């Protein structure tokens, strides 16, 4: 299977050896050419973890991430390239934009996990259009209550009752969402532990696939839940 080549040990091999755009000397992923000290464009193949010099793990030290973000911002921000050549200014602009996207993605645990899934399993983010099976009845009922509330006269007693129901439902859904996030957190820890072992055996591979699948399912359930809550909040204000 294709994703087996993406174990943490092979990460360095992925980085394409290339040439400095300015002096043509060899650069291998460094941000500045060792010979002419010119800034190098961050390669499209460089993933966000590599960009920040981090291993592909789902638990990240936020303070370290921020410190690295500030350090790289000082290296790439267009403010510091005002006196440089146009080529360097263009590279600085592109690198800074990539860096900002990378930071935004890695900073948020959910986005980070979605990004890692994408890297590891090449998945396109699955958008769930029907409720998860265990929630089917409840969601259907909620949709009916929502519609009844929208159609009701806001001053009536019935409307107040419906509203109270919806408020209770919102709390229940948020509780579920929170439980999902805790479940996800446990999977994140399991994933990191598996990666740390660096085991490439058949059993480890099966475990890896299982974790990826579970994370994907939970993430899409969580997104579905989040959208329902957003819709609910927008309706009851």
């Amino acid at each position, binding site marked *: 299977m294709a994703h087996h080549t993406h174990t943490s040990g092979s990460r360095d091999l992925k980085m394409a050896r290339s040439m400095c755009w300015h002096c043509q000397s060899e650069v291998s992923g460094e941000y500045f050419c060792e010979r002419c000290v010119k800034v190098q464009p961050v390669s499209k193949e460089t993933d966000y973890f590599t960009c920040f010099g981090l291993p592909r793990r789902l638990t990240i030290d936020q303070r370290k991430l921020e410190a690295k973000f500030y350090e790289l*911002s000082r290296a790439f921000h267009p403010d*510091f390239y*005002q006196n440089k050549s146009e080529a360097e200014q263009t590279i600085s602009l592109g690198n*800074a934009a990539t860096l900002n996207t990378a930071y935004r993605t890695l900073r948020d645990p959910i986005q980070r996990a979605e990004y890692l899934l994408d890297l590891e399993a090449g998945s396109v983010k699955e958008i769930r259009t029907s409720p998860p099976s265990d929630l089917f009845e409840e969601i259907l009922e909620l949709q009916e209550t929502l519609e009844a509330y929208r159609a009701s006269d806001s001053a009536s007693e019935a409307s107040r009752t419906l509203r109270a129901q919806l408020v209770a439902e919102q709390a229940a859904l948020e509780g579920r969402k929170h439980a999902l996030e805790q479940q996800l957190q446990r999977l994140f820890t399991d994933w990191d532990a598996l990666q740390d072992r660096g085991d490439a055996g058949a059993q480890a591979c099966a475990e890896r696939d299982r974790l990826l699948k579970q994370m994907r399912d939970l993430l899409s359930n969580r997104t579905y839940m989040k959208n329902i809550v957003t819709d609910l909040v927008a309706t009851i204000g």
Partner: protein
Amino acid sequence: MSRIVGIDLGTTNSLVAYMKDRKPCVVPGRSGRTMVPSVVAMTDNGLIVGDPAKEHLTRSPDRTVYSVKRFMGKGLADVQGELSYFPYSLTEKDGVIRIQLGAKTYSPPQISAMILKELKQRAEAHLNESITKAVITVPAYFNDSQRQATKDAGLIAGLEVLRIVNEPTAASLAYGLQEKTQGTIAVYDFGGGTFDISLLKLKDGIFEVLATNGDTHLGGDDLDRRIADLFLNEIQTEHHLDLSAFPDHMQAVRLEAERVKVRLSDELKTQVTIALPDGKGRYTRELTRDQLDALVMDIIEYTLAPCRMVLKDAGLTPADIDAVVLVGGSTRMPLVRQRVRELFGKQPHCDLNPDEVVALGAAVQADILSGGTTDMLLLDVTPLSLGIETMGGVMSSLIRRNTTIPASAKEMFTTYVDGQTGVDIHILQGERELAQDNRSLARFRLKMPPLPAGIPRIEVTFLIDANGILNVKASDMRTGQSQSVEVKPSYGLSDNEVERMIEDSFKFAQEDVIARKLIEARLDAGALLTTTEKSLSEGSQLITPDTMVAIRAAAAALTTTKDGNDPKAIRARMVDLEQAAQPLSVAMLDESLKRNLQGKKVTEVM
């Protein structure tokens, strides 16, 4: 690298600042005042800017432009609701507002350029060097069109605008430099025409904007209008006078409203006096601070909704904010300070001069760009979501609001019909679902290779640069070739128009110089004629009749030339007269020496 100045181009006042010995300082004018009123007046002798133009507000209201910042990057329909407040007349051409001044119309960037030029000259006179580069500040909540219009204004004024900086962020730089604080700060910026609220994290010299919000059409102007409306209504009922027929008096009321508001920041009550037209005497009343507060309370409340929103966006509560910094003249109002204190639960910081802090911050940013300051870095955000119109008139967001800039997003486009040669793309900015409820920024047509439907793959990169301004690039993923994209702004000047305005501005500048030289030459010629006349009356007995005739002839020639329009000719005739009158001057000098020596002993002279 040549010097870069920092400019605060404000709704009511503008300032220019620079870095001196690692400290920002504002350039004073000849009178010592640092603020240039953002007012431009068309007089019989040409355009004038600043304090002298302000005097024309009541004298020739239809030819005196103020608060032009409210019109930057806007179409006429955007400002329909407030047109009646402005005594000058506005029209529209190609989606850009034009302001009628005498026989000509000017776009808001052209008017702003006149203010920028005044600041440029002020800086040049103070620093004794030519200034061609600047950092200009804008409200954080300015959209792409408004930012672009500001950049155009700079170009027209002969300034290379190296950076557009958000006003509250600029203020945080000046604050951070002075206070050396770390932590999370809120900058509440309530100016003459705009309101911004920004939350920033200050850590190790990095100024990271967490979120920003605001209203680009809410400021001191609105407070003045509310007060002016009260006076106008009372004048109507008490004196049976509708002042709207008297533009000069309308301006007098507006200016008095502003003065009253300013006075009530220090006093608890004040006297209002407005002269009425047609010999109807005066309107007078007393206004207390409590009455003012009640009058404008709801406007102040409008600023609090964005404050709550910005906290929500940043995921913070008031308790997380370590300091609140006040910026903008309107924050001098005690009611504003009180409401801000109540919302954030802490005493706002008001040690910095709220009028100057933005310009000072702009000077700091200018110093960062020129390589002088290397330990500070600003990481700003885009205030509004950027997206494109998709099927069904819905906006699809590509870059969310409060994303750190530079920011980029890529989108792949293909065709739906065989042989289709283009796809129309409509770029939007805003937070609403439907395209029509958001701000239209620009449109462009993406060229497609004529292939079966779905085969072409054109990747479009939307990049918001460090100025918060959008750049669009497209490339064919199949061939790897990039495509030039000609974006037509929905509310802005085209490159050609800006080009033409720069030329015009240069031409005007030359005309201005000639006009000034002429005025100076005439004044000098007048002075020379007066002194010559005086000398002739005192010393005609000392010179020959021939010299006398020569002097008279030269003086007559100068008198004639003086009324012409050629400063060079006037200067030449002045030289002629001085030469002709030289024997007279020499003779008079000898005469006066002789007179001084008479009656004195030789020893005294020796």
